[in-house]
């Protein structure tokens, strides 16, 4: 074999990639200047960003944090007047809650994180769920105050229900036991709670200073309403969705009617119903707290949307899953709990979380019926002589807080989706 000079016998050493394809330059070429059209877009958006930065940055750097009115702010510097947030921070957070009691809502929200931990993070031991169950009573006590016996006696109803269930389960079977437990709890709550707690209050009065509902406000109020709505609308939504999917025509019609009615009217009309019309619908002389009424309406509203989201998840589940559950001999509730719901809920996580986010944002609507949530407070702050004319600083701050809450919820849902993903 002759050694032909035009055939290379050894492999050439590896060359580095062209300078324009790797590193910063490569990234820029690929992502910002990959063609004439893209380069134009890049320059236009750069111009927009630089313009905005040029306009907004001085506003931030020349800001004032310590002043007692807008005109005083303007004398100090011509930038943003964040003094309004500095001065009204407590009000925006707590409304007109008594100053010396701020530790109570703060403690309630710290405990809230503890109560949420076993629900949101699965490395936390499940024993903590017991605390989550008790938490509503603790929160009520801390926020509204009053004697500790009311919530304790109300909680005892739950214990009574469990006791009745355990006892009746052995005697008469599961279904009868559930019915008996529910009846026992309802009877306890309707007829026993008030006399028993009164009796206890008269003898051993332990409790906190009471706070009226109209003293609640700010982000505390939004979080209270949003949290109750989220916690209650989820189970109600599941029941409504199951009712809508059910084979029983009467139940189905009732669920469809409820869902479509609620989804067809704006939340505002429901809130006005709560503040104006509930007096007509309930027996004469029944008055109950406006915050409670709003909570009920927000919950009903969100549960109709929740039902539709979960129904979507149920509908997306292949028919085979239902049939397989039947073939295993599971009854309806067993099939729902073990097979259907875990999958349907997983499919509907994005929808569920966006309903939660929507609900939290919708709590601002209570300002229209006169509750002092952040937006209601912003109106009254702006009506004040000292802060008349302030716009961006105040609204920007409120928007930022809402953004933090909602954005972290949506990120959590994305994390949950990734974690539960079983497909390929």
């Amino acid at each position, binding site marked *: 074999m002759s050694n032909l000079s035009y055939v290379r016998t050894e492999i050439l050493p590896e060359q580095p990639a062209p300078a324009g394809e790797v590193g910063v330059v490569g990234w820029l070429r690929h*992502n*910002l200047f*990959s063609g004439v059209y*893209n380069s134009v*877009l*890049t320059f236009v*958006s*750069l111009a*927009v*960003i630089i313009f905005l930065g040029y306009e907004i940055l001085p506003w931030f750097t020349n800001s004032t944090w310590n002043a007692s009115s807008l005109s005083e702010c303007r004398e100090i510097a011509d930038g943003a007047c964040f003094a309004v947030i500095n001065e009204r921070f407590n009000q925006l957070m707590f409304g007109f809650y008594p100053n010396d009691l701020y530790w109570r809502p703060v403690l309630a929200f710290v405990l809230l994180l503890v109560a949420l931990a076993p629900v949101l993070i699965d490395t936390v031991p499940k024993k903590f769920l017991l605390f989550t169950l008790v938490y509503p009573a603790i929160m009520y006590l801390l926020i509204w105050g009053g004697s500790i016996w009311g919530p304790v006696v109300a909680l005892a109803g739950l214990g009574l229900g469990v006791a009745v269930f355990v006892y009746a389960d052995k005697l008469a*079977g599961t*279904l*009868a036991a559930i019915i008996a437990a529910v009846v026992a709890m309802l009877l306890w709550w309707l007829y026993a709670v008030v006399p028993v707690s009164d009796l206890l209050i008269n003898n051993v009065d332990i409790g906190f200073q009471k706070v009226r509902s109209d003293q609640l406000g700010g982000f505390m109020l939004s979080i209270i309403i949003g949290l109750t709505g989220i916690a209650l609308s989820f189970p109600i939504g599941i029941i409504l969705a199951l009712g809508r999917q059910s*084979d*029983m*025509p*009467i*139940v189905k019609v*009732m669920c469809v009617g409820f869902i479509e*009615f609620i*989804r*067809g*009217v*704006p*939340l*505002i*009309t429901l809130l*006005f*119903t709560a503040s*104006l*019309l509930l*007096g*007509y*619908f*309930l*027996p*004469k002389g029944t008055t109950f707290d406006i915050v409670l009424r709003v909570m009920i309406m927000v919950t009903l509203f969100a549960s109709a949307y929740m039902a539709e989201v979960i129904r979507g998840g149920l509908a997306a589940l292949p028919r085979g899953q239902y049939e397989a559950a039947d073939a295993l001999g599971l009854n309806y509730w067993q099939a729902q709990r073990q097979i259907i719901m875990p999958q349907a809920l997983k499919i509907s996580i994005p929808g569920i979380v966006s309903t939660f*986010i929507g609900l939290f*944002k*919708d709590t*601002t*609507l209570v*300002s*229209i019926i006169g509750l002092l949530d952040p*937006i209601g407070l*912003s*109106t009254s702050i*702006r009506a004040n002589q000292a802060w008349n*004319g302030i*716009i*961006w600083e105040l*609204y920007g701050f*409120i*928007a930022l807080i*809402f*953004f933090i809450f*909602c*954005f972290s919820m*949506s990120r959590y849902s994305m994390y949950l989706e990734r974690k539960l993903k079983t497909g390929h």
Partner: protein
Amino acid sequence: MTTLSEEPRAFRLSMLIYDTRYRSMTIQIVALMGFLAVLAWLVNNTVENLAIAGKDFNFKFLSSRAGYDINQVLIQYTNDSTHGRATVIGILNTLLVAALGCVLATVVGAFVGILRLSKNWLISRMMAVYVEAFRNVPVLLWIIAFFAVLTELTPAPNAFRGDSPSASMFLWDTMAVTNRGTYFPEPLFSRSLGNIDFTYFMISIDLLAILAVLFASGWISARIKKHADAVQNATGVRPATFLQRLGISILPIVALMFILGLHLGKPELRGFNFQGGVHVLNSMIALCLALALYTGAFIAEIVRAGILAISKGQSEAAAALGLRPGRIMNLVILPQALRVIIPPLISQYLNLTKNSSLAIAVGYMDIKGTIGGITMNQTGRELESMLLMMFIYLVISLLISLAMNIYNSTVALKER
């Protein structure tokens, strides 16, 4: 030999719960009875409370004099008109703001949704910032903030006065942005055809003529396209129709405008305020813009998800057939993406319409402002007003979803 057939057993009461044949019936009857009992209780309470308050339940107040002014009316209205007419004004205002908002939101949403998919890193990030900023902040906050900006940072009408005014009009002195609203030039016809009076409302014949001409040109243009399609199917060569269709779309309407004598009525500063032109309230601009930008952020995500839902193989196959990128989008991707996009889009339109009830926060007179606001407070008929308002919203919602569902069925996959 044993048989599997069961002896028919005597009916026992416990079978109502434990026998699956009867259980669903039992549950349904119990649920129905519970529902009826609650309903009866509520109605009974209402009747009693109305009796105690000395009120009755009727809608006669709708035909009595309203006695209040409405700052934006689409059909004729004075404070001598009835409460019923005020309600109609409110409905029209709601529909107007909802329609404008939907159109604007769709445009913004489609634009942003497509740009978010851009390969350009900077653009897609900027659009992501917009979407997240608007999605995660309550729409009420946006509405109020926009309104505050429009009323507090814009000049008063008298700032336009004098030799060296501190404010100036836009677009060659035809548009004025003031703290009392924005004034646009208004189309006027010097040879107007007048109005038809339907006693309850009036319709401008000019408008009817314009609509008729537009409809006719659209129909003829569609016929030309159909003919071109037929020719293309028969011969394989598509006749050039662009100029014909452009002409038929533009020339007749231009001719009509000329016949009617179209000219623009500019807003002018007279006295303390601008006169002439179309006066658009700040409340309406704030409401429209905030609703459109807020809903637009949601629509952008829907559009993006819809386009991403179409598998890459579709665009690759289209490219393999030799289609240009624009045509791939128009002929292959969009028709399929629309099927994914439209159902959630419908619910966004519904949301926008329902959110338009937040108009009350900025004083725009929609249904909530008329029947659910001043009328309710003046007549003291909370029950009737609220029920009527809810009914109107329900009807609007049902109509929108009906219309969009019909559209949806025309683009849905035709399965055989």
